[in-house]
């Protein structure tokens, strides 16, 4: 397991290769989030990611622990950047290694959905209309909520 919150970019190929290389792994699902040059109808020149140092790492650890409790996760890497980013820059990587693809996909998407709604990061965009904080989306809460409805015993 590897969790990094860093200003620097990351190398997706190297990170995936570095996942525990044992031969019980049959599936690696991964996700990369990138800065788009257009958001909510405005051109985005640069984006600044603020975070809560210390809490971010703990929040991601907690999310990964939940994923491990629900699916077979043989190894997992989460890297989230902060600081100033430009369009097409990488923001986040989640890579999950498992025996089977169903577990790898589910754990990877779960970690992303929870990270979007529970890890203390905030995006501020510079647009031609000035700087603005990105608003949280109801669709992100819904995406995270899907997983709760699937939990046994949950309402």
């Amino acid at each position, binding site marked *: 397991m590897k969790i990094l919150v860093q200003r620097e970019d990351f190398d997706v190929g190297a990170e995936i290769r570095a996942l525990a290389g044992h031969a019980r792994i049959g599936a690696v699902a991964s996700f990369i989030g990138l800065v788009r040059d257009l958001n909510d109808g405005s051109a985005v020149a640069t984006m600044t990611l603020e975070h*809560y140092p210390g*809490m971010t790492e703990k*929040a991601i650890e907690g999310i990964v622990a939940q994923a491990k409790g629900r699916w077979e996760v043989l190894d997992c890497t989460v890297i*989230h950047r902060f600081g100033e980013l430009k369009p097409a820059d990488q923001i986040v990587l989640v890579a999950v290694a498992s025996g089977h693809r169903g577990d790898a996909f589910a754990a990877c998407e779960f970690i992303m959905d929870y990270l*979007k*709604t529970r*890890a203390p*990061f*905030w995006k501020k965009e510079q647009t031609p209309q000035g700087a603005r904080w990105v608003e949280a989306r109801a669709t992100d809460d819904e995406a995270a909520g899907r997983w709760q409805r699937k939990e046994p015993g949950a309402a």
Partner: protein
Amino acid sequence: MKVKVLYFAGLREQVGSSSEELELPAGVSTLAGLRSHLVARGGVWQSALAETRLVRMAVNQQMAQAASAIRSGDEVAFFPPVTGG
């Protein structure tokens, strides 16, 4: 009791402060109580932390609810809904 209070993102900009050390009166023992205490300052505090605003809170770097207890020495944080990922 004494607590450390942190503010992040848009909320930090609104109150014009990223962190402060607070000496709380005896009656304040929950996050809701602390929030009311700050709102009572009026001005930017009242507008940024008003009941009608969506504000997320953490105690000692764990997400927490309004009813959560706070203790002397705690690190408390107020911030808008998160938008990372």
